């Protein structure tokens, strides 16, 4: 048994539903008790789906366990086909149904249904959401494209003269992090360099589309978590090579173009010469100087975490102080990536462990999932979301891909805006002693009355005793001070001096100084100690 307070990934059948819901013409009969129908709300509420996902839950009850759950399954399958007239029927079991051991695949096959039946074994007690999506997509591809596989050893037919190279775009699902816009963005990018998309799947594809996957010259795997197994099978069966670089950020997008061009046999020079993204210039502009060395903690699914770390380090000049994933299946890739930044990867699906590591790393910015957004909020650290699990906010009304050149623009905006802008930060530092420009002062445009009211008492003792304004980490996760350790005390002068530190970095200055004092065994923190700490820690 595993104690779980909160989970990054849902059960494997949620992954299966994400694939089914992304497609058209597929219906999924899920052998499951009534409560499992909660899954629908993920699609209708988070993604604002206008239709229920195409799932029939057999809704078996306790009293039926000993008698007729298999009959119930067959009735549900028959009714679903009659009502929805799908081109293919996906069948599987959720956790409880797996325990009662009805063979859904066998039952459905025995019904001699007029459409292809694709059974999927979801191993609910071993596997999770992304694995379920990967397995389901693989089984669908194998079942539907399988009949078109040429005999082994058949060479791939040459492209007709004048015909543009074609690829499949694989991996986008429902409830994927910006998958909707990524598919559009990468299809446009490919079109610009002279490549057509044969089929994009699962998102937007029908069973008939999957049947013609073999027509493409190669595959583009946008999200290996979902399309890895299918791409492997397509490579084996149709001899289609796969592009595995995920075009997240400028560098990766340029690599992606090179890789695609090689497989397509076209010249990428023109595409590489012109980069239609503002990120390169914005990152070079003087305002971005202050981004240099900002400490960033990255956590998410493997694809987004690895990609984000690369952008952070090589395109924005951040220092990657943490890199981790909840995707154990891709742990090796993340460990490899972490080595590039001289750190050890964090592989865990325990968010409390992630929270502890974030607190320990004291980053300036967290790039994570919605859970890290909560964690960062508690720690008072800016955060941008880069990965599933998704939230209604991750389905913006506007076009906001993560991949490709437009995706790079989106990354710049969404990661940089939570940080204070450079010029603003510079001015705040410059004027930090100004009588009108400290955190207790009301904005001057509100007039003298407001300013006076705000300037009133400000009892220095009370102010000094107040917790740091911005970056108070005294939450439940901050490491408790071990008994016996010296707890340094701030002198009144040092507290007063600390107030001269701009408020948005004061919490950090306080922490750094206290750590410095503890390390040196100082009982008191004096003004001298404050500046000693500053000199030692640097920025």
């Amino acid at each position, binding site marked *: *048994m*595993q*104690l*779980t*307070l*909160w*989970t990054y*990934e*849902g*059960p494997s*059948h*949620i992954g299966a539903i994400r694939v089914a819901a992304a497609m058209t013409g597929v219906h999924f009969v899920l052998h499951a*008790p*009534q*409560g*499992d*129908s*909660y*899954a*629908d*709300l*993920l699609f*209708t*509420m988070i993604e*604002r*789906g*206008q*239709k*229920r996902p195409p799932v*029939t*839950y*057999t*809704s*078996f*009850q*306790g009293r039926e*366990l000993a008698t007729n759950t298999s009959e119930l399954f067959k009735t*549900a399958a028959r*009714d679903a086909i009659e*009502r929805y007239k799908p081109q293919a029927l996906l069948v599987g079991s*959720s*956790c*409880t149904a797996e*325990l*009662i051991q009805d063979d859904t695949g066998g039952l459905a096959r025995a019904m001699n249904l007029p459409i292809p039946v694709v059974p999927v074994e979801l*191993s*609910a*007690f*071993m596997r*999770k959401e992304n694995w379920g999506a990967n397995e389901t997509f693989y089984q669908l591809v194998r079942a539907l494209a399988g009949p078109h596989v040429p005999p082994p050893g058949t060479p791939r037919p040459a492209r007709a003269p004048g015909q543009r190279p074609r690829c499949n775009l694989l991996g986008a699902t429902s409830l994927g992090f910006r998958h909707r816009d990524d598919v559009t963005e990468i299809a446009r990018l490919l079109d610009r360099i002279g490549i057509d998309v044969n089929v994009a799947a699962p998102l937007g594809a029908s069973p008939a589309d999957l049947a013609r996957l073999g027509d493409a010259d190669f595959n583009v795997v946008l999200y290996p978590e979902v399309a890895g197994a299918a791409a492997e099978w397509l490579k084996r069966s149709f001899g289609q090579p796969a592009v595995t670089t995920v075009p997240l950020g400028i560098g990766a997008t340029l690599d992606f173009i090179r890789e695609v061009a090689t497989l397509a046999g076209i010249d990428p020079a023109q595409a590489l010469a012109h980069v239609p993204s503002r990120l390169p210039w914005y990152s070079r502009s003087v305002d971005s100087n202050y981004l240099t060395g900002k400490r960033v903690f990255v956590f998410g699914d493997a694809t987004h975490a690895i990609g984000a770390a690369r952008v952070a380090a090589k395109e924005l000049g951040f220092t990657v102080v943490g890199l981790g994933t909840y995707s154990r299946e891709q742990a090796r890739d993340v460990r490899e990536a972490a080595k590039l930044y001289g750190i050890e990867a964090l592989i865990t699906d325990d968010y*409390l462990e992630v929270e502890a590591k974030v607190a320990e790393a004291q980053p300036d910015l967290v790039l994570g999932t919605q*859970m890290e957004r*909560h964690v960062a909020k*508690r720690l008072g650290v800016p955060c941008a979301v880069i990965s599933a699990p998704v939230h209604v906010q991750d389905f913006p009304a506007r076009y906001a891909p993560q991949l490709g050149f437009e995706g790079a623009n989106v990354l710049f905006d969404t990661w940089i805006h939570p940080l204070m802008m450079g010029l603003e930060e510079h001015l705040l530092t410059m004027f930090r002693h100004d009588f009108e420009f400290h955190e207790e002062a009301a904005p001057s445009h509100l007039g003298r009355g407001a300013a006076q009211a705000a300037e009133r008492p400000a009892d220095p003792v009370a102010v000094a005793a107040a917790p740091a304004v911005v970056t108070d980490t005294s*939450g*439940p*996760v901050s490491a408790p001070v071990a008994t016996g350790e010296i707890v340094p005390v701030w002198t009144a002068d040092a507290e007063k001096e600390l107030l001269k530190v701009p408020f948005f970095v004061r919490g950090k200055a306080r922490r750094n100084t206290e750590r410095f004092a503890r390390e040196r065994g100082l009982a008191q923190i004096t003004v001298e100690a404050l500046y000693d700490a500053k000199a030692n820690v640097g920025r």
Partner: protein
Amino acid sequence: MGCDDSAVLRERGQREVFCGLAPIVWLHRKIQDAFFLVVGSRTCAHLIQSAAGVMIFAEPRFATAIIEERDLAGRADANAELDRIVTRLLERRPDIKMLFLVGSCPSEVIKLDLDLAADRLMRTVGTGVRIVHFSGSGLETTFSQGEDACLTALVPHLPAAEAGAGRSLLVVGSLAEVVEGQLQRLLEGLGIERVRFFPPRSSDDLPPVGPDTVVLLAHPFLATTARSLEARGATRVSAPFPLGAEGTTLWLKAAADAFGVAPERFEAVTAPAAARAKMALDRYREELSGKKIFFFPDSQIEIPLARFLSRELGMELAEVGTPYLNRQMIAPELALLPSGTRLSEGQDLERQLDRCRADHPDLVVCGLGLANPFEAEGIATKWSIELLFTPIQGYDQAGDLAELFARPLLRRSRLVELAPCN
């Protein structure tokens, strides 16, 4: 007036409802020193966090002990694993005074005996912690029945009321603090001095029960809890539920009659509050009167809500669905429904959707899985779950309750320049 048995449509098919684990979302906020440990699968964990929505706390007081392959394959002893998890959990959370081991569909199918586990753990690790088992399994319980199961499991732990201490009133069912306060003031105004609420906010404040206890249910879904309290000698008084001005008055009246409160006093205490409630309802009557409403089954409070909306706001009832119709608990409500109201019990989702579309209702009360698809079809909806997370009982919430139904309609009347959806 009054609905009889012949009008009930009993359905069996695909369901679109939560299981009994979902009430953990509000129960853990109610009993503030309790921890709910579901013994189940990743699905259970995901369900609760999805139902809880944004309510992700630093470290919530609910969790799932996820059964894994090795527990099933016999490579690990599930009981030993559970003991290990509970021990670790209680070490980590010394603030926890009551631990609920919550059964689930998978724990039931593999016949993990959690009653036995609770007893064992009480003996081994449970110093200062009460460990109680109930089942929230969707195989047996639908949504709010989880609260019934939880409270039923607590009944044996209630202290015996002292003999000769006098009669007391026990209000049963989770209510918002603000509602409890209002009801308490009214009941005290009636001269009923010994009023207790169950579940309590703190697990060491369990209310006593005995032959002098009068039980009044705040929700219709607590039939088993009521029976268990009766088995401990308590007397249950039957009443409509305290939704709307009329419902609240009749609910209070049942208490007043049980305690022999004079009619004049009852009138004097309740009339001002009832008048205030009616005034608040007047504001929404124009919007709601004559509008047709369709209830999908959810928490069993559909029938009291339908009674309120039809009698106090003039709404027309197309269909009132309920996951489970407990005739005994709901009899006073059924008597107030317009005769011939179409009631349905259980669910066959697709057929119910067909009936709903054919009815062309103005408003559909349904779960979150159905709401946006209905809106996309042009049918206004009210999320049923909000009716459980919002304080709606009592006189001073009657207006708020009406507003919940009026808002979707009002919103539509404002959005006059939107293009069709794409």
